[in-house]
Structures are given as structure tokens and as C-alpha cells.
């Protein structure tokens, strides 16, 4: 009798131990409704898709470029969070998640922590709707945002959270939603650069817009993978209009030898002497800005 009782206690302890280790991931086993499950027809392997996804740069780099040019911050460039509760489809929610993610990067880079709390709240709401909210550590991020001294941690944790959400989507047969989030983030990055360029026509911003041709080519492959889905069809058409203008942009490369440097502190560094040169005409540039504006504003509208 005694031994049965002891074994019972051990089994209960083991079960509760397993529960503890899964804390915070309670939604992991949630069933994905058919409406949001992956309906894309796969032509490209998952491995290839992962590589394509990695070849679309982080929106934080765009924000860093803008800040490095000493361009003042403008809240006007950001997508409104007023409609966050009204985005009802997983399609729209995924795109908006990417757009807000890029805006959060811009806010964090400029240390606008009071405004960023509003975006953190909105991202959490959208992530919960998409059943990936367990990866967005809102309480820690909110605490970090409350103190402007923790900006590096805020960027680090928010970027990591986005990565975890993306990985979860891709690992759980919802890579179509991951593709939409990536598309949203990319588009918002281009939109921010375009908006800033119009008030500060810096050659580096001009080049940054032109070189998006490379990222967009990768993004198009990613989106085309889901072309049989009706919502994607429309999105692909919109992105194709931007892509068609980018096709005219010319990017060439001058070859050079990479230099290796070890400084007095023993820090190793490399300086590349290959150089990419972007040739973009005013006409191409303004067509890109106009089309980007149109597509982005259409996507954030209800």
C-alpha cells in the first residue's frame, strides 16, 4: 500500500515537472484553424524558403541608416495603431505584425520608448490573435521601454521575440503567415526610407532604396510560393508593380581585394573592397516611392 502511495507521488511529481517546463507555451498545442493553416502549393523546399527568408535584411538596419544620417524622428511616418482591434483576418494581421515590427525598430533606434509602448501593446494583441503571443514577452519589453537606459536590451529582446514568432510559424505549417510578416516588415522599411528621402534627399538613402531590388527579388520568390491563395494573388500583384519598376534599376559590382586588419587591441576586422554601385534615375525613384506608398497605405487600411 505504502509503495503504491510513494509511486503515485513520484508520478504526480513527474507530470507536474513536465508541465512546469512548458510554462509560457500553453498555446503550443492549439489547433490551427483551417482558415489560417498553410494552403500554399509548395514549389520551393522548406530549406530553400528558409534561405530566401534569411536573404531579406532586418528593418532595424533601415532604421539605423536613417538615424545615422541625423534625420530627425517623425511619428508621421508610422502606421497608426488605431485600427489594431479591427484587423480581423490572419492575412491582414500577419502583414500588420510585420509593419508594426518595422515601426518598433524605428522607434527603438530613436529611443522613443514612450511611443513604443503603444506599438508593443498592439504587437502583443496581434500576436495573440495569431496564437503566437506566447513568444512576445510584453511585460519584460514594457519594463525595458519604461527606462530609456535599456534600449539595447529592448532592441535585442524584441528582435529575438520576432525571430521566435517567425520560427514557430514556419515550424507549424503556417509559413504563409511568416511570409506575410516578412513582406509587411520589408514594405514598411522601404516606406520609411522613401518618406525620409523626400524630406532629406541624401544619396545614401537613394542608394538604400535602389538596393532593395535585391531583397525584393528574394521576397517575390517567397510570396510566389503561395500564389494559389486568393489573398496572396492580390498581394503579389501589388508587389509585382513595385518589382517591375525595380527591374529597371541597375546594380553593378567593382571588384577589389579584402583587407585584413588586427588593431592594437588585438581586434580582428576585415574591410571589403568589392563595391556595389546602384544606378537609379529620378523617374525610377519617384515611381518606386509612389507605388510603395500606395501599396502600403492600402494594406494598413481596413
Amino acid at each position, binding site marked *: 500500500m*505504502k*509503495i503504491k502511495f*510513494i509511486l503515485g507521488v*513520484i508520478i504526480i*511529481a*513527474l507530470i507536474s515537472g513536465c508541465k512546469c517546463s512548458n510554462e509560457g507555451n500553453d498555446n503550443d498545442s492549439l489547433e490551427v484553424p483551417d482558415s489560417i493553416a498553410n494552403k500554399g502549393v509548395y514549389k520551393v523546399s522548406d530549406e530553400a524558403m528558409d*534561405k530566401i527568408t*534569411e*536573404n*531579406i*535584411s*532586418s528593418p*532595424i*538596419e533601415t532604421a*539605423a*541608416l536613417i538615424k*545615422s*544620417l541625423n534625420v530627425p524622428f517623425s511619428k508621421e511616418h508610422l502606421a497608426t495603431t488605431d485600427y489594431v482591434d479591427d484587423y480581423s483576418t490572419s492575412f491582414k494581421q500577419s502583414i500588420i505584425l510585420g509593419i508594426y515590427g518595422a515601426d518598433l525598430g524605428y522607434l527603438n533606434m530613436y529611443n522613443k520608448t514612450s511611443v513604443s509602448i503603444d506599438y508593443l501593446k498592439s504587437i502583443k494583441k496581434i500576436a495573440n490573435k495569431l496564437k503566437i503571443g506566447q513568444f512576445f514577452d510584453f511585460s519584460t519589453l514594457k519594463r525595458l521601454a519604461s527606462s530609456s537606459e535599456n534600449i*539595447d536590451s529592448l*532592441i*535585442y529582446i524584441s*528582435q*529575438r521575440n520576432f*525571430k521566435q514568432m517567425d520560427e514557430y510559424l514556419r515550424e507549424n505549417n503556417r509559413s504563409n503567415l511568416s511570409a506575410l510578416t516578412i513582406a509587411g516588415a520589408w514594405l514598411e522599411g522601404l516606406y520609411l526610407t522613401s518618406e525620409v528621402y523626400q524630406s532629406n534627399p541624401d544619396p*545614401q538613402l537613394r*542608394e*538604400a532604396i535602389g*538596393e532593395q531590388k*535585391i*531583397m525584393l527579388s*528574394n521576397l517575390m520568390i517567397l510570396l510566389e510560393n503561395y500564389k494559389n491563395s486568393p489573398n496572396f494573388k492580390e498581394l503579389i500583384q501589388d508587389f509585382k508593380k513595385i518589382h517591375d519598376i525595380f527591374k529597371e534599376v541597375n*546594380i553593378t*559590382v567593382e571588384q*577589389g581585394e*579584402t583587407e*585584413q586588419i588586427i588593431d592594437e587591441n588585438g*581586434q*580582428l*576586422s*576585415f*574591410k*571589403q*573592397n*568589392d*563595391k*556595389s554601385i*546602384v544606378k537609379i534615375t529620378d523617374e525610377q525613384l519617384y515611381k518606386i516611392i509612389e507605388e510603395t506608398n500606395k501599396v502600403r497605405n492600402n494594406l494598413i487600411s481596413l
Partner: protein
Amino acid sequence: MKNTYFFIIIISLITFAGINQSSAQSGEELVNICQRVAGDATYLKDYTVKLGSTPPGQEPLQDKQSLVLRKNTIYKFSICSSKDYSGRAILKLFSSSKLEASNYMVATGKIYPSFEFTCQKTGAYHMFIEFEDGKEGLAVIIMSFVKKI
């Protein structure tokens, strides 16, 4: 008496398993440690690589990762190997087939914990990661942004 021994064995096994679990360095922990190595540079992405030991006489096993780098940007690559494995990670950064950077100096045999790369060409790059002498290893690579030039 037999039952008491059985009980002690079970409790010992559970305790031992718990200790093992808490001391093993997970990929996630390694990312957090490596972020400290990255220092002031702004975190962009991380990559976790786990490889088994290479059979004798064969080329070391490698992991390949794709990434995109942008012109006029200084990036920092921090490479952190798990203390739970003997392998130390070697990172080689390629543009097409051209070796651009590595944390391993062939001439001296030294493995650096990080390096900076001044990128002048926007485009796709590839990272090849292997472990020294083909040993088993777990490593995290953190790519971070230093500044625009």
C-alpha cells in the same frame, strides 16, 4: 526493505536527471551569453549550429547559412562555442565563392571570438561554420550592427 531500495533509486535518478538538465548549456542560454560578447553592437540575427564529430579521414562537417549584408555598414560577428562540447567554432564568410572573412587565422592557428566586417557590397553572403578538427560542437553566431560609414 526491497521497496525502500527501489524508492531510493527512483529518487536518485530523478535528482540526477534534474542536475544534468540544469547544468547543460542550451542554445538559448548561449545566445544570451554571446549577446554580451557582441557588446555595444546592435543585435540583428543569431544562428545556432550543432554538429556531430567528423569520422576520421573526412573533411570536417559544415553548416551553411545565408544572409544579406548591406553596403557602407560595419557588422560584427560574435562566435560562441558551448562549454559542453570540445569543438570550437570556425566561421568563414563568403560572397559567392570568395572568402571575405573568418575568425580563424590559418597562419597562427588562432581562433578569435569575434570579428568586424566592413561591407561595401549589398547582396547575399554565405556563412560556413565548422568545428576545429571536426570535433562535436554547439555554437551560436550573433550578427550585429556596429555603424554606417
